[in-house]
């Protein structure tokens, strides 16, 4: 299994990571060797094996639906890089 630089670019875009050309080459090589080392995993016959998403017994705990105070807005905005009028400010999404 080996990844091309084009595939790395595609994945980086899906993951919203801007990579330098040098990083693209490095990750193509490193991810390829990591996936190669995982090849033995793909050979295991799992046709009869269910997947494990969690080790816990399935449960759907519910808590009483009682309203409680929220943290103040200023506190939740205090880590934001940019705010305006009590909101998070971002660059335009639509042209």
């Amino acid at each position: 299994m080996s990844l091309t630089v084009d595939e790395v670019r595609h994945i980086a875009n899906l993951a919203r990571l801007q990579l330098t050309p040098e990083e693209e080459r490095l990750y193509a090589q490193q991810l390829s060797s990591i996936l190669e080392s995982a090849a033995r995993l793909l050979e295991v016959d799992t046709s009869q094996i269910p997947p494990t998403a969690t080790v816990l017994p399935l449960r759907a705990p519910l808590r009483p639906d009682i309203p409680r105070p929220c943290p103040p807005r200023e506190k939740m905005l205090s880590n934001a890089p940019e705010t305006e009028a009590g909101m998070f400010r971002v660059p335009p999404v639509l042209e």
Partner: protein
Amino acid sequence: MPNLTDLSLLEAASALRKGDVSSVELTEACLERIEALEPQLHAFLAQTPDLAISQAKAADQRLQEWRKKPEEPLPLTHGIPVAIKDILCLEGIPTTCGSRILEDFRPPYSATSVARLIDNGVVILGKTNTDEFAMGSSTENSAYGTTHNPWGLDRVPGGSSGGSAAAVAAHMCFAALGTDTGGSVRQPASFCGITGLKTSYGRVSRYGLIAYGSSLDTVGALTRSAADLLPLFIAMAGHDPLDSTCMPDPVPEINLDDGNLTGVRIGVPKEYFIEGIQDEVETAVRSAVNVFEELGAEIQEVSLPHTDLALPVYYLIAPAEASANLARYDAVRFGPRRKSEKLWDQYLRTRGELFGPEVKRRIMLGTYALSAGYYDAYYGQAQKVRTLIKDDFDTVFKDVDLIACPVAPTTAFRIGEHGDDPLAMYLEDVFTLPANLAGVPGMAFPVGFDRNDLPVGMQLNAPHLGEKALFQAVHAYQTQTDWHLRKPDL
């Protein structure tokens, strides 16, 4: 009275109760030791001396009242100085996860594990260094510089909870919190010659633990003995309505007085003594197994046949979960921003420039494993083989109460030794990953030293929610041996 920082946590708790020492005195002793050693070790990312002194003063006041009514319960953690891995939120104090992308982030709330310790009277000295987002086995992946091992300053302390392990081993604090997703409490405990508990998945709330691999992440603690660790476990464990994966099961009472292990069945998995394991590690672990036998345990060889698949399973599942969890770092609600005219470019630049190389590598790997056309082949297959690994543990735990094995194939390696070879670094986790995939608890503790005077660790694993047996067995071992009492020359 000996040097205050050389007391065990339990000795310090007892001295506090008697009034032989105050929490402020303990705290000042720790702060002085941190000041003296921090330039060599770099265990901390943030120190909180003002918070510590105010918590210590409050603890002393409570102690004064308690001495008038000593029949009232008082937690053993009361007034004890501790450190917190910088991946657990502490309200108002910078929490960076060792990453530039959370530089100056001040959490609006504290993690449940941290809040429960505070409720139990601890004094918080600061936040400890970690591999970025807990992704690593050496703390070399911290964006803020690596931590040095107190047993050899040119060695790594292990990771990702390497700052916590170094701080405890160097007697800068009496205990520290860590987290363990693939070995991040046990391996640094082993490399630094201390005791570390990885709790069962679901035993301790993860509310306020900044997520890495959500089906694997656990909160744990590091101390200089199992007996010292118990009060922290008792303080933290148990249901939390703020974490739906936190189990409602009651936390058992754990009595450590009885050092007798008669009838306890310990399995030694043959797959853990592989080629490439350092001779001295195997020798020390096997002689520790003999000590358990002398204590009355029944030893038998067992088999966990899918052990060699744990590494590729983990390095697909954890990155896949990480790629989803780390999508939240979008420079909108928190963290520094690489300003651009378009939101899209802002995402790309901020994440590309502020995540470190290992984090980007794992996000890429995980994104790939989850992407169209590869999901079934990689992520789906890894989840199925995870079932086989978990079944291995379920099967063996029908015959034995505990599993005994090495923590890592070697003692602490040199800083820079694995350079830019991510696979070589991943191999360091080969013995710790299976417990995370199976969700079972594990405790690492020192069982010897190698020819370079570096600690050798061993771990016991127990069935899910079986921490009690871990505490009893490791405590029994530590009543018979003194590896855990050794202190590095600093």
